[in-house]
């Protein structure tokens, strides 16, 4: 209920935010909705010296068309993302996964970039970012603009490739061409609970053959993971029921799932296999 004392900074523009961040010190945290950070503060699991609140930085909230891609601003709320026509048309996987995040109250405060920068492997959006192979857009006062591919962004448990003085400003998502299918299969005990396991998949088929497939796994390790063994088995082949079933059996390979009150590591491995099969089936069935 009662967070520890901290300095509170509230920039009005992106430039000001980027300038403020290095001055706020090593232990500063960026507040981008607060749906993960505030509970950590209230439980006194985090003691940042300062919070840099992005709430007033209007330019970070935009979702825009960028030619062959769309860019979702870092502080676009989940609610905004779910309802946005550009996202629904060009990134339906993002819209579908975001709609499963927590509950309406959280979705009205929590932000797209905040979830990614928080890098909780149990969060839904990091696995989606992997499956869509998105590009993270970052900016700092010292280094200017930098692009980080999703596969290089999540480096450890709740740790990203962002430098301490660097701000995630947005995410670029390529518009999919024809033949793509998507699905996010989330398994949780209650509607508001974290995923025990989630599977995000993006599949492109050309004349029945799998041209491209990317599968992101939620909560199967200290970072969001790709189910590479499944992807390898499916690439180039046709998607028969048995091929899909066989490939999905390899979904847990290379993962190190956590064990907690909601599921043992073994159970999570089992779920990864079942859910991967279901996600692939859904993504390729229209």
């Amino acid at each position, binding site marked *: 209920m009662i967070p*520890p004392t901290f300095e509170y900074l509230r920039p009005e523009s992106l430039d000001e935010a980027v300038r403020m961040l290095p001055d706020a010190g090593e232990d500063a945290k960026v507040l981008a909705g607060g749906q993960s950070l505030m509970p950590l503060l209230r439980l006194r699991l985090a003691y940042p010296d300062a919070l840099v609140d992005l709430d007033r930085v209007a330019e970070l909230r935009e979702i825009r068309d960028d030619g062959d891609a769309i860019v979702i601003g870092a502080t676009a709320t989940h609610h905004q993302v779910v309802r946005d026509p550009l996202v629904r048309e060009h990134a339906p996987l993002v819209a579908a996964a975001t709609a499963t995040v927590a509950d309406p109250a959280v979705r009205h405060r929590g932000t797209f970039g905040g979830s990614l920068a928080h890098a909780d492997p149990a969060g839904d959006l990091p696995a989606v970012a992997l499956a869509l192979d998105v590009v993270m857009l970052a900016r700092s006062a010292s280094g200017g603009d930098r692009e980080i591919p999703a596969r290089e962004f999540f480096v450890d448990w709740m740790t990203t490739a962002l430098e301490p003085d660097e701000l995630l400003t947005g995410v670029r998502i390529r518009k999919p061409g024809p033949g793509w299918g998507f699905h996010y299969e989330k398994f949780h005990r*209650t509607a508001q609970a974290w995923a025990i396991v989630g599977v995000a998949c993006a599949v492109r088929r050309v004349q029945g053959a799998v041209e491209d497939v990317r599968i992101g796994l939620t909560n199967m390790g200290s970072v969001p993971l790709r189910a590479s063994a499944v992807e390898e088995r499916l690439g180039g082949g046709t998607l028969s029921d048995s091929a899909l079933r066989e490939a999905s059996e390899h979904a847990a390979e290379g993962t190190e799932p956590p064990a907690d*009150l*909601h*599921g043992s590591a073994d*159970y999570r491995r089992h779920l990864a296999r079942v859910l991967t099969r279901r996600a692939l089936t859904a993504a390729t069935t229209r």
Partner: protein
Amino acid sequence: MTEIGHARLRSEDTRLITGRTRWTDNLTPAGTLHVAYLRSPHAHARIDNVDVEAAKRRPNVVAVLSGKDLAEEQGALPCAWQVTEDMKLPAHPPMAVDEVRYAGEPVACVVARDRYSAVDALEDIDVDYTPLPPVVDMEQAVQEGADLVHSDMGTNASYTWVFEQGDLDAAMRDAPVVLERRFVQQRLIPTAMEPRAVLCEPDGSGPTMDFTLHSATQIPHILRLMLSVVTEIPEHRIRVVAPDVGGGFGSKLQVYGEEVLALLLARRLGRPVKWTESRSEGNMAAHHGRDQIQKVTLAADRDGIIKGLKVELLADMGAYLMLVTPGVPLLGAFMFNGIYKMDAYSFTCTGVFTNKTPTDAYRGAGRPEATFAIERLMDELAAELGVDPIEVRRRNWIRHEEFPYDTIAGLTYDTGNYEAATEKALALFEYDKLRAEQKDRRERRDPVQLGIGVSTYTEMCGLAPSRVLGSLSYGAGGWEHASVRVLPSGKVEVVTGSSAHGQGHETAWAQIASDRLGVPFEDVKVLHGDTAVSPKGMDTYGSRSLAVGGVALYRACDKVVEKAKAIAAHLLEASEDDLDFGGGRFSVRGVEAAGLSIQEVSQAAFAAHDLPEGVEPTLDSDVTHDPDNFSFPHGTHLCAVEVDTETGFTKIREYVAVDDVGTVVNPMIVEGQVHGGLAQGIAQALYEEAVYDADGNLTTTTMADYLLPSAADLPHFTTDRTETPAAGNPLGVKGVGEAGTIASTPAVVNAIVDALRPSGVRDVPMPCTPERVWTALREGGAR
């Protein structure tokens, strides 16, 4: 429309839903100091030293106190239920002094000018602990040589309580079918929406110092008496107010250390002090519920006729006995037989100390545990015999023409009609159609299997006849008080000793008074929850409010009418025998024009210019009602689940609840109680569990770990009623606060087991999480 039976919107809801009301935490008188507690991180440890000096030097801090500083004045928290003569009752200091016995026990407190400063200063209190071996597992705790929670007692068993009726040995020996099962009632955290909060304001000084204590409590009257006993502050110097209270489910039927300490701190500092807990604090330190290991043995003949039932319980008390801790599992002793006839019954319960948060009443308190066991057994018996679970119940239940019926557990069920409720439920559920679908899915080996669960429950409400409580060695009675005051203007004030914490008494009580007095609903104001306003009361728990307090009000209304009738007869110069009363008006039979309204009579009673001989001025009455018997709601609940055998996920597909709660005052309130009860009972079956690790640390301290279902997780509830009035009270009401919780848990688990039975599964421990279902399937399949 008559008011009794009218589905009225609740008049209190505007303020409760908006929160613009007197929650205790909304009250902050000028000069209020804020309290924060440092709590033990250990399940069991000796306190070697508490250094509060650094914390005292923090800004805005007014006082920092350890248990040692308060040892002389803090007394011991009360247990009102000495269930056996030799029950072990350890001293329970509001703040630990020498030893901590559960993680979360208060060790020290900071009083500061604001809440932030108080919580910050906790970090500067330095406590030296010597860890002691924690006692976490109940079954190990009662083994020879086990580590002890209270070393001076020489045992972890607080008591063993026995009830026996009939020749059980003979019944077991001669029965061709004997089923033995072990069920675990997991520990639950009541999780009221409003956390605990207390504010104490001192006034004056010396021996005439007065205290007004606001608390989010279910029991202002009991709390006042107990605070006086514990602190030795005279009872008449303490006023307890339960303002609007946001739920309790039994967790606020308690005398908490934080309430006692608020009084002591206010006395010591001479200023108002306030404390409101955080959710995590509440999870650790407000009392928990359930937590029993049940060994149950059922004997039956080949036709499924029950011959006898043996119940052996271990009940986890936690570290201390609180207000009614030891009695809670014993309430189940009267309910394990359910609605069934049998020749022999034995019940044994051992209360066990562990280094965990104390347990106490939680919605249903003893009855859900009992109902779960018998209703699970009935399904097991049906499966054993290859008979439909409805049919096996029919063969054993008390038939409607057999009431009143003296049960094997020593109660007299006054009325009931199990046949009618069951018929209605089966029709609404489309039982035969679902059984056909189940058969089809089994034959197709569908990965999603369908299961059907039955629960034909009864329970005891209307706690309680005082003489029965006396015979069970409970420390108080079970009556309830009501006052009715018809004001000079003809408006009505009703005062009830049973204070609502969300149940809607203000609406339902106004309906009763409106109905009985013939005055408009809006003309009735219900007052409650303040010992200065409603001096007598036994408070709110055990589905007692309507069946005891509502009946007190009903009788008080009739008493007012009786007095008014004497005055009316006098003024109308008629005989009382010739007066009729209806629609709020006394009229002389046969003389249409001659009459007086109750408002006119009230005016006359106030003016007192012309009253009959011996009649006192003003129109009011008081009734303290002590019930003759419990009331016995019953019903039939049917649940259909779809179990995903690949993931273990259970989805409730249909839920039908047909309840018989007697006469219904407000159907909308009853429906709300049923819905909430179902949600909570289903939550025990599927979601909730307070989990301790091997060191005795509670791992479910937040709602991310302690899962509560929301509307999104629950099915559409199909609810209906049969209405067999209770014979024991003039209103015919039974009580509905706990019925849904009691009935639903076994219905859900029975459905899950029914879905999986072809795979060899005979039980799934609660909560039936997806992983547990998946594990049961793997183990069942391997058998």
